[in-house]
């Protein structure tokens, strides 16, 4: 099967405009005859639901949380990029495009990324009009800051809570449409399967998480906006509930999974403090604007710091290695995330890690406080500093923060074409749930941009084309495909509920996380990945024998919810390992130890790996089949990324 990304012909800057004209439209009076199902209410899901309802479509929106406002987009801290060039510092749509393609280590599509940069400016306007209180300067205009991987200030922000403010903006637009009767909202409802008829997605099967009722919903198309799968690593910066189940079940119904091994390890997270830890907390990348990353120059000093016989501020200037500034003078502390993370890891492997566990480096604000004053630093980063104090009981105004990389974002996801359609007609994937725009590494402040771009400004155009083609004929749950899929779901749930072994689902999740972090984390080797594959397969067998699932279906049952999600994570984990094994090159966040430059940077193999890997599910315990979508570069020249 050949994969057609459907990237429009013509010059890069004209692709999207031309494509919008070529897409079919649905007559305004016909829009109300179409039903659209949207799963997930984060930035992508809420913005898509609101925008499509405004156009006149009937939308059914689903989330597993108790309110659409809880979606994990809410936790994004740093900001959102837009090529406004308000700072007069040389930014442009082309520069944002270029930075994003380069930041992704040339593993994203030019057409998609250019469109993303193009609509970025509209997103800011839209959010301001909704009443999103972005940071402003004294003159009343919008403020900007710089983020990793770029040399211009194009990041818009709302203190350290940008995701919260953008999500509440999209939530308010969604609420307006719920009030208008154009969106029907289903909270505490989890999607468990996709229903297909003649190869087209026509609905979903859900579980009501209060009553346990298994229900079916029909529509002319299904949009998955269900986020990423970082929780496959157990510890990540994702919310506890973030899961891959909707995307994975869609995968098992035929949707290809793109680049599953592309995961982002964020350099500035609060280090793990013990086995009890349930999640990791990010410290926004914006901190690297003013914070300086360092480790002690010698193992002896590191040893003293680990034992607590000296404190960080007692280490002399000459004994500190500001390793990012030393190695990358042009970008300094603002190198992309993958580069910063790998360098921290290197320091620790050399024995220069700090903190009780030795798994940390410093992020130091002493110079910034000297230069700007404590009040200014507080105004910029106060809530982040407070969060650090809460968690660690240490004061970052006095001593440097301890940071360590943690899994934060997944660039991989369901394969989609330029229209955000998966290879299953009628099934779309938006936001982090799809694989499309970030290549092998996402730049900071680009996730919010992509989620809102997909929901506000791409899907309202591209979905209409599909709907116009299939026509408004009503889709009804009386079709036998709905009952059949529903029965499959019930059978699966009963299988889970029958598990009365001796190991909790949480313990399996932790085991999976250890395997993934050890062998499919910041550095990956052929040998390690092969070992991981065996371990995961054994874990899966053990899970279906010895896991404990308590309670019944017809009630609130967190144990059952979790069991289904972990079972899916185990299967996904194996595919990630397969993908990482197949990709015998390093690129962005995917670092194969066998493929590095003399300086230890990721070494791509463009001749053999300039493609998107799209995996096809072939049945339980069968090897998945790889399809390749060649990446064609017409505008940028592929080169070794250089941030020095």
């Amino acid at each position, binding site marked *: 099967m050949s994969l057609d990304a459907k990237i429009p012909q013509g010059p890069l800057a004209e692709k999207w405009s031309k494509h919008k004209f070529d897409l079919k439209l649905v007559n305004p009076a016909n829009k109300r005859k179409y039903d659209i199902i949207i799963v997930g209410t984060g930035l992508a899901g809420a913005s898509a639901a609101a925008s499509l309802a405004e156009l006149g479509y009937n939308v059914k929106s689903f989330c597993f949380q108790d*309110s659409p406002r809880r979606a994990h987009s809410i*936790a994004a801290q740093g900001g959102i990029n837009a090529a406004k060039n308000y700072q007069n510092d040389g930014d442009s749509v082309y520069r944002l495009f270029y930075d994003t393609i380069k930041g992704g280590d040339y593993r994203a599509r030019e057409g998609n990324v250019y469109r993303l940069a193009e609509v970025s400016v509209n997103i800011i306007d839209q959010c*301001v009009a909704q009443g999103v*209180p972005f940071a402003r300067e004294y003159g009343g205009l*919008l403020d900007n800051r710089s983020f990793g991987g770029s040399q211009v200030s194009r990041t818009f922000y709302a203190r350290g809570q940008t995701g919260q403010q953008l999500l509440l903006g999209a939530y308010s637009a969604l609420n*307006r449409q719920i*009030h208008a009767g154009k969106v029907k909202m289903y909270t505490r409802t989890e999607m468990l399967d996709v229903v297909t008829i003649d190869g087209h997605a026509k609905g979903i099967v859900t579980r009501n998480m209060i009553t346990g009722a298994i229900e079916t919903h029909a529509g002319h198309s299904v949009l998955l906006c269900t986020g990423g799968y970082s929780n496959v690593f157990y510890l990540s910066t994702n919310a*506890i509930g973030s899961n891959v189940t909707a995307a994975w079940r869609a995968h098992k119904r035929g949707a290809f999974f793109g680049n599953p091994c592309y995961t982002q390890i964020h350099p500035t997270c609060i280090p793990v403090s013990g086995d*009890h830890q349930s999640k990791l907390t990010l410290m926004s990348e914006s901190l690297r604007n003013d914070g300086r990353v360092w480790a002690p120059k010698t193992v002896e000093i590191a040893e003293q710091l680990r034992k607590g016989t000296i404190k960080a501020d007692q280490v002399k200037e000459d004994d500190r290695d500001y390793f990012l500034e030393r190695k990358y003078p042009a970008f300094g502390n603002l190198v992309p995330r993958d580069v910063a993370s790998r360098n921290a890891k290197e320091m620790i492997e050399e024995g220069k890690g700090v903190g009780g566990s030795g798994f940390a480096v410093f992020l130091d604000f002493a110079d910034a406080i000297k230069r700007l004053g404590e009040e200014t630093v507080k105004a910029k980063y106060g809530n982040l500093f407070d969060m650090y104090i809460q968690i660690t009981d240490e004061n970052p105004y006095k001593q440097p923060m301890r940071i360590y990389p943690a899994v934060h974002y997944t660039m991989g996801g369901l394969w989609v074409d330029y229209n955000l359609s998966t290879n299953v007609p009628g099934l779309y994937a938006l936001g982090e749930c799809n694989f499309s725009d970030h290549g092998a590494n996402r730049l900071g402040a680009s996730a919010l941009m992509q989620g809102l771009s997909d929901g506000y400004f791409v899907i309202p155009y591209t979905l209409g084309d599909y709907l116009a083609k299939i026509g408004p004929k009503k889709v009804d749950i009386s079709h036998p495909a709905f009952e059949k899929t529903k029965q499959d779901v019930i059978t699966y749930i009963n299988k889970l509920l029958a598990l009365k072994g001796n190991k909790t689902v949480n313990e399996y999740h932790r085991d999976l996380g250890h395997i993934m972090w050890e062998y499919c984390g910041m550095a990956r080797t052929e040998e390690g990945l092969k070992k991981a594959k065996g371990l995961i397969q054994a874990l899966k067998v053990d899970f279906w024998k010895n896991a404990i699932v308590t309670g019944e279906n017809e009630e609130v049952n967190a144990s059952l919810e979790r069991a289904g999600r972990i079972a899916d994570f185990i299967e996904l984990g194996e595919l990630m390992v397969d993908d990482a094994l197949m990709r015998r090159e390093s690129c962005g966040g995917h670092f194969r130890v066998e493929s590095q430059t003399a300086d230890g940077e990721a070494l791509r193999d463009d001749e053999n790996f300039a493609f998107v890997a799209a995996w096809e599910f072939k049945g339980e315990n069968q090897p998945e089949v790889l399809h390749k979508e060649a990446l064609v570069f017409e505008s940028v020249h592929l080169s070794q990324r250089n941030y020095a």
Partner: protein
Amino acid sequence: MSNGNMNLTLKVWRQKNAQTSGKFVTYKAESISPDMSFLEMLDVVNESLTHKGDEPINFDHDCREGICGMCSLYINGHPHGPKRGVTTCQLHMRTFHDGETITIEPWRASAFPVVKDLAVDRSAFDRIQQAGGYVSVNTGGVPDGNAIAIPKVIADEAFNSATCIGCGACVAACKNASAMLFVGAKITQLGLLPQGQPERYRRAQSMVAQMDEEGFGSCTNTGACEAECPKEIKLTNIARMNNDFFSAKLFREEEIHEDKH
């Protein structure tokens, strides 16, 4: 699997669902580390219950970094526990001492019925937002983000109100189960910004009407909501809400009639 040295006694509210009545059940939480969050301490208890084949304690939680608003818990008589300005997920066990007895209840308010154990139904909050917590602009066709200058102090003040996470601690803290801090925060945010002006008075009317319909109580200016709010939303938000609500009623009848979309 836990690695600490604190031993605690928990008195936890267990209730199967909204239709049955609940009761306190006592549990031991052993070998708790002071670095654990309160929810991680409950995770430890739940793991041991699961191993015994008992049903784990049900509670709402998600982001575990204090921003999603999903976690709740009325701990020793305080929403989100004894520490000010934090949610339960950010409350750490070092706040408690070894040997302590901790009482854990759900939010108590008739507008927040219990779902199971410690989780409650806060959909009333969503319905209040749906009644008017927005600026009526469609996607596209909006002016440039810098077309309207907004004084920094106004934008910052609007932001302070906008930090509300919708957790419901204000309601749980109030002896009247009033939701006015929550409602006032959204009315204040949009009422301060130029984008919110066209619908300012209508918004105040419709949100307050929905708040009343949901069965939340009235405000008697005790200030417990402000004291317990994990985001430290100020009582002045209620004053602004009252201002907009009453001036709408008295002087702006023409702006507040509801037109169906």
